[in-house]
């Protein structure tokens, strides 16, 4: 299915990452946004609030982020593509209903423009310290997909992808932006509507009598019924069977929760996405995502000038993590170097997958600024030595 031209602001623009994200949501067919203002994400909903009345969408500023996320899950059940937008403190509050979206298998998109934490932290300054929270933040076992753009253009492109992934896998998809990308203004090309491919909601073709909301039948995700179409279905945050009815048993828990994990795990090869550069013959591979991938470029150049064979692996999709590729690389290189604007989060995943075959060296930064490329260079040189 192609995008509805009404939501697509085709052309070449000079936009920041936040505005680009908002434009992409509208291009992707998002017509319901609930949010609560929080720096540095607010520009996204401001853009949407200004444009939605002209394209048939509804934006509502809710009383808090608990309500915003709950409203997004509710709207998702009407078949409307739905999104919320926040930053760290709000992301914490949204965890409750991100879990509900995962459990009910409600497609939706959550944007987190990361700032420095913990708590109120650095409201206006950059951080990347919510990456593990994105994966594990709500209680219990479940899966999500998380994307990390490194430019305003990629903020646009990945937001479209986020909506498509949410529909394909019926999961909450988390756009893990950071303040730098959110507030950085660059050229953004928005293609014509007929060049934007969208995944529509997979509505059931069964009759109300034979429809079961969580019946899999060997397919990836169950078929969807919208509220108000006569299916009179039930869905719950409780552990449920294929009828959507709560069943309190270890057997049902096994089936229900394993499905939530397997639908992402078993399709990781289709979801995982990364970019590599200079990997062949490298002794060191720098693993990056978001704004840090751009800062690391200079660190890599400086290290190359000093004769180190160093490549880069940039994560576009952070969760699911590219386990296979990191395992492969670990066989041939000396070390991974992982600069992140946090105390060392994704490096733990790199280390796990490297499994001792190669080193995984963290280059932590507590936030408020990006790395000094010299620090990244120094870590690369030391790792190669």
């Amino acid at each position: 299915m192609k995008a509805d031209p009404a939501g697509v602001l085709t052309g070449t623009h000079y936009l920041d990452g936040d505005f680009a994200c908002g434009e992409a949501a509208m291009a992707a067919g998002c017509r319901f946004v609930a949010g609560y203002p929080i720096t540095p994400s607010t520009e996204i909903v401001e853009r949407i609030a200004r444009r939605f009345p002209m394209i048939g969408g509804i934006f509502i500023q809710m009383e808090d982020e608990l309500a915003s996320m709950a409203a997004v899950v509710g709207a998702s059940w009407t078949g409307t593509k739905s999104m919320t937008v926040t930053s760290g403190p709000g992301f914490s509050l949204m965890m409750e209903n991100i879990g509900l979206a995962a459990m009910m298998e409600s497609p939706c998109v959550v944007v987190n423009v990361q700032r420095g934490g913990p708590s109120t932290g650095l409201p206006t300054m950059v951080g990347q310290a919510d990456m593990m929270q994105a994966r594990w933040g709500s209680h219990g076992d479940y899966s999500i997909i998380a994307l990390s753009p490194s430019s305003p253009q990629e903020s646009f492109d990945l937001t479209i992808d986020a909506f498509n992934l949410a529909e394909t896998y019926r999961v909450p998809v988390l756009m893990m932006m950071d303040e730098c990308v959110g507030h950085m203004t660059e050229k953004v090309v928005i293609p014509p509507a007929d060049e934007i491919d969208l995944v529509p909601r997979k509505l059931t073709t069964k009759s109300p009598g034979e429809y079961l909301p969580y019946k899999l039948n060997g397919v990836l995700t169950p078929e969807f019924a919208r509220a108000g179409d006569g299916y009179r279905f039930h869905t719950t945050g409780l552990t449920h069977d294929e009828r959507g009815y709560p069943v309190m048993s270890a057997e049902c828990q096994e089936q229900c929760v394993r499905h939530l994990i397997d639908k992402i795990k078993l399709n990781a090869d289709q979801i995982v996405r990364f970019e590599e550069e200079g990997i062949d013959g490298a002794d060191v591979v720098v693993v990056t995502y978001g704004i840090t991938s751009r800062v690391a470029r200079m660190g890599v150049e400086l290290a190359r000038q000093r004769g180190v064979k160093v490549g880069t692996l940039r994560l576009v999709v952070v969760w699911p993590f590219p386990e296979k590729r990191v395992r492969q690389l670990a066989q041939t290189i000396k070390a991974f170097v992982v600069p992140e604007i946090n105390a060392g989060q994704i490096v733990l995943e790199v280390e796990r997958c490297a499994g001792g075959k190669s080193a995984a060296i963290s280059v932590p930064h507590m936030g408020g600024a990006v790395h000094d490329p010299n620090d990244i260079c120094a870590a690369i040189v030391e790792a190669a030595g």
Partner: protein
Amino acid sequence: MTEVTDERPVRPDEHPIAPFVRMDRMPHIWCPTCGIGTVVKCYASALAESAVDLDKVSIVSGIGCTGRVAGYMKLDGFHATHGRAIPFATGLKLGRPELLVTVFSGDGDLVGIGGNHFIHAARRNMDLLVILVNNFIYGMTGGQNAATTPLTARSSTMPFGNFERPFNLPHLAASSGATYVARWTSLHIRRLTRSFKEAIRRKGFRFIEVIAPCSTVYARLNKLGDGLDLMRFYYEKAEIRHGADTRQVAIGYQDRIVCGKFVDEEQPTYLDMMHAHYAKALGERYVPMPPEGGWIRE
């Protein structure tokens, strides 16, 4: 002498509200003499008597004893997180305005953990029918103190009696902007059903509080007798005063329960306000959501 037989006078599937209930989920989890089932019966009767297109009715519950209602009614039913039934329902309503969205939950859920959502939905006059079953206590978790527990009543977390001031819910709803506010007990089945029927045809934030017995915890902890004793208490202590000033309807421990319809006024809903405002501010540039039907069969 009464003869005991295995025959039931009415088969479960012959029960008048069976078409509204997921009979494959019976028996329900509610205790004997719990008032929730009675409120469900009244709501189902109201739907049956209101020419409502049931395909267009969604029901949303939070967590708790009353939170199970959305799972038992044969409607599009959503069992959301604790306290979040109202914002979840807000998303449903705004995503598809043709739906009649009913929120059916308990006092702990809607005005304890969910209190902030309650007042804001009322402030916006969000188009929701909110049915709150108030049993004065957290029933499902075993009788902890609630935001509605009357002063001096015992709960498991106020073992020497409650010293926290409770909410006066009709006043909370009315002063937050609800456009229909009523209170009944689960004894008032005809008046309650009539109130539901009336509210189904209204628009905006409609709030109906139903006082209901919890004999398993509230009555046991407070030595108030069994279910029948509680119904007798409602019979004796309920005062019907339509149009009463909601400031005067707070509930004291084992004190009178003022019932009736306190507020019933027509005010533009959130969506009415939004449409009117954008139409005025933006003129032809305003593109409302594609219009659909409604929930009343003409």
